[in-house]
């Protein structure tokens, strides 16, 4: 039944939209659509954004691994192209601080009336377009360090539930520490 649903194009587009509406609502309630809250996180003055992300990872990690165990979906980890990930990740990070928003939260910020976020979105369209144009020239570099779609349990050869337990404890401990330190 679920597998049939995956092929229904119009229904899927509508589902994507619905999940997006809920996502945008939550991002705004979390404060993540606000430039000041994101920049204060990057300045390590306010840890609201990391608390949201860590809690979402714990919740997501446990749920997703139960889902792929009992339902049709399978894990879909992205390829670990470590060189482009590190370089692209750092470039992304610089943009993250300058715009004060990321691709998802910039869309959300537009919804809350942030005019400057519209320029951020135009910039992202240009940046993605430039990447598409230079892709031909860096395709080999992208593929060169590709380790494939590896997961942490696979590469460490440890049962995934142990990893999930340890990661959940570490992330929860960091959040507990932040709360105790008054953040």
């Amino acid at each position: 039944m679920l597998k049939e649903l995956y092929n229904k194009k119009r229904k899927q587009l509508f589902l994507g939209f619905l999940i997006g509406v809920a996502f945008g609502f939550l991002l705004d309630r979390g404060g993540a659509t606000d430039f000041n809250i994101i920049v204060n996180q990057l300045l390590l003055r306010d840890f609201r954004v990391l608390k949201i992300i860590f809690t979402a990872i714990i919740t997501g990690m446990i749920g997703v691994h139960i889902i792929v165990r009992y339902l049709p979906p399978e894990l879909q980890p992205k390829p670990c192209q470590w060189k482009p990930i590190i370089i692209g990740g750092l470039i992304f990070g610089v943009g993250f601080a300058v715009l004060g928003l990321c691709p998802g939260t910039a869309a959300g910020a537009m919804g809350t009336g942030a005019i400057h976020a519209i320029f951020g979105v135009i910039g992202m369209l240009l940046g993605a377009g430039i990447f598409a144009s230079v892709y031909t020239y860096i395709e080999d570099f992208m593929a060169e360090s590709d380790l494939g779609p590896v997961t942490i349990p696979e590469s460490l050869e440890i049962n995934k539930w142990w990893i999930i337990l340890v990661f959940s404890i570490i992330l929860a401990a960091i959040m507990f520490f932040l709360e105790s330190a008054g953040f």
Partner: protein
Amino acid sequence: MNIISSDLWSPYVVGIGIGILIWLGFIFSNKAIGCSTAYARTSGMAERAVRGKKVEEKPYYKKFVPEIDWEWMLVLGIVVGSLISSLLSGSFRLETVPLIWQNTFGSSQILRFIGALIGGLLLGFGARMAGGCTSGHGLSGTSQLSVGSWLAFIFFFIGGISTALLLYGGI
């Protein structure tokens, strides 16, 4: 406290909610939530509108066909969802120069718009090079315990924290 009009919710409640949305994306759509490919596809659609069908021949657009897909609708939904949220809470307001930016670079709107454009450009390029953004890598990829996504997530914040400290931190 009225939950509908309360401006900010506990980050833990929001985080659990977003985690559940990751489940729903997997269960009902077999999709991992992500945002940055929508920008690549839109860029392709815009370029195709100007330069015609030959744009589709670019190798990158063969991988990420310029069309409206699930993620594209997700990003559109984010705009609508945050609009609804901010209207209900009363936090909706037109913002041209955010406070921290203003304290650092002054109240020029043009300067902020140029800054936002440059920031966006780096985000768009970096996300496509890294293969995802704070959602695709930072939430969905990390939840799947993907090695590349954890690496990306860490480097997003290394780049972000160091740049923010340099720009706004008075260092």
